[in-house]
């Protein structure tokens, strides 16, 4: 029975399902490292998913669709930055507001411009030559969608940005001690705007990865709360790309496992199976709380001269 459950396709699903989480969490990591919590992530994912789907549906051009999602994501990130950084609104609640707006708006626009459920031809899978022929491992790792490879490639890229570039240094400084960073001449505002715009772009791509690559359709509440889980995964991953990678894989593994078990009909009530990812996330949050790596300035608006 073990071999029935733990098939190569289970692990391949794990890799595939992790993709939207990776995009979203990496973007959120940048924002949180700079001290800003973006809880509107799910709403941004939904809007990105819709825009990408719409453009792809209307023009058939996937690259254009992706670019549209990127542009929209940048805009949403900018708006979020304006609300959280300039207006210094309470970050948690304004995030929920952004979520509700993205949720409602994406459904509204979907009903206006598309109306009925449709599917499109999304980004294709690409089998990497030679490597994909390796038995078992080949199927799991090297026969995935283009966007899957992109998501995993982002992990070392974001690590590099954070640890080896000037921008990353500024981000980390602003997140730990914005007053000191400000005294050193770093523009806290500009750094936070940057990370939020990047976060918005990545959130949008995360949504697009669902609508024009992995699932190839759009419907109301396509993400079903993925964005919130992504935020939780940032906590769980200790605000580091490697940790976030581990968390995303762990979560998508539980997800894939739960689906597999339901399909096999193993006598576990389906409701508990569906529940399990959320319980896991909750436990992850509890254990993550003991971390010392939390950016000290997270959720605290910065104001020169003391707020």
């Amino acid at each position, binding site marked *: 029975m073990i071999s029935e459950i733990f098939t190569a396709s289970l692990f391949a699903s794990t890799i595939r399902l992790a993709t939207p989480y990776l995009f979203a969490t990496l973007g959120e990591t940048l924002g949180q490292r700079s001290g800003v919590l973006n*809880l509107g992530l799910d*709403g941004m994912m939904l809007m990105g998913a819709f825009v990408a789907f719409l453009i792809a549906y209307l023009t058939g051009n996937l690259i254009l669709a992706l670019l549209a999602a990127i542009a929209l994501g940048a805009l949403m990130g900018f708006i979020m930055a304006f*609300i959280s950084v300039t*207006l*210094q*609104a*309470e970050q*948690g*609640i*304004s*995030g*929920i*507001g*952004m*979520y*509700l*707006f*993205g*949720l*409602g*708006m994406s*459904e*509204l626009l979907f*009903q*206006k411009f598309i109306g009925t459920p449709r599917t499109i031809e999304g980004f294709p899978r690409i089998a990497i030559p030679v490597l994909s022929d390796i038995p078992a491992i080949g199927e799991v790792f090297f026969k995935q969608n283009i966007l899957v490879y992109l998501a995993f490639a982002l992990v070392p890229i974001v690590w590099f940005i954070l640890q080896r570039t000037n921008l990353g240094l500024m981000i980390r400084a602003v997140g730990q001690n914005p007053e000191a960073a400000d005294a050193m001449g770093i523009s806290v505002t500009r750094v936070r705007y940057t990370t939020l715009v990047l976060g918005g772009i990545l959130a949008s791509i995360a949504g697009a990865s669902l609508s024009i690559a992995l699932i190839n359709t759009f419907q*109301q509440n396509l993400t079903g*709360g993925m964005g*919130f889980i992504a*935020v*939780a995964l940032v*906590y769980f991953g200790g605000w580091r790309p490697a940790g976030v990678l581990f968390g995303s894989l762990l979560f998508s593994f539980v997800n894939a496992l739960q689906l597999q078990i339901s399909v096999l009909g193993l006598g576990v*009530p389906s*409701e*508990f199976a*569906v*529940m399990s990812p*959320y*319980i896991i*996330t*909750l436990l992850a*949050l*509890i254990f993550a*709380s*003991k971390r010392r790596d939390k950016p000290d300035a997270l959720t605290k608006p910065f104001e020169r001269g003391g707020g």
Partner: protein
Amino acid sequence: MTSKIEKSSSLFESVRLRFWYLVPFLLSLILAFLAVAILLLLFDANPLSAFQAMWTGAFGSENTTAETLVKATPILFVAIGITIAFRGGVINIGGEGQMIAGALAGVAVTLAIGERIGVLVVPVALLTGFLAGGFYGAIAGFLKAYFDVNEILSTIMMNQIMVQLMNFLLNGIMLDPESGGLNNIPKTARIVPLAQLSRLSVNFGSLEIFDRTRLHTGFIIAIVLAIIVYIMLWHTTIGYRIRAVGLNTRASRYAGIPVERQMVLSMFLAGGFAGLAGVVQVLGLNYRLQTDGSAAGFTANAGFNGIVAALFGYLNPIGAIFSSIFFGGLLVGAQQMQRELGVPASMITAINGLIVIFVVSSQFFVRRAQRQQKADQSTSFEQDIESDGEERVPA
């Protein structure tokens, strides 16, 4: 002479501060309306006729007004709880799950022992619902206070968990024995008549209002509780402590207030009121708990709408009464608008989001006014020193 300046300036200051509290609120309202109008234009709908359709849909007749108040009831319960939570410095997004928890517990108790305890069944059911929702909320409060777990994230997770638990119970143990899989809607048995909250109607001689509508006494219970909570928050020690912790945890700790316990208490109360919302929905409306498998099938998103209503009521239970009725009208009116003009009612979700953003952003102006007030006070102090040549210890 100094005291006269102080007195007149402080009166001016308090008026100016009140002004700056009001302006952001009005601004949010105006912006929200503008946003709605723009969205409507996007749908080729005339904003004016849309607003008119909404108004007629919400308050046009006795029946629709009753429906508005029916919709407003659970929103108000949740909003009261959220108000307490916000004032206590915690953000409760778990209204949906807590509502379900309260409804499940209340229905279970009613079905189990309802017949045996006669008249007591309503208070017992309400109390059970309150405790169940409260306990569910307290878990999140506990995790925040002692494990520093972000309560927004934990309550969102707990929502999903409770929905699945509800489906499990409604499809299993709590399934109506008489349904026999006829239409396969998961639901519990009907509760005994004594447990049902009576329908509300006003009869003064020949004047009959709300006869034969769905309006029930749950609405009155909500209003009474709103008033009680208002008194509690601003006129009792418990309320003072809740607000103190919400305003400044560190200072509260120095003052000896047990901050962690207060957080748990605030979440407990918030969850409790959401639980009440759930129980009252069952006792007053459907007389059974049924759903389509989703949370919104039972709650109609009152868990989220309650948050927006609390914010729009400016975190005051009395204000929440009016904003809940407003949102009830919005929901009912939106259906009419959809019927008449074809604009999807899901626009309301987007509007809710915008209202939340506007209200929370408008605090910017309030804070600026408060800072200005502080700055002015210290300036007048300096003027005192210069004019009298006296030193005075700052108050």
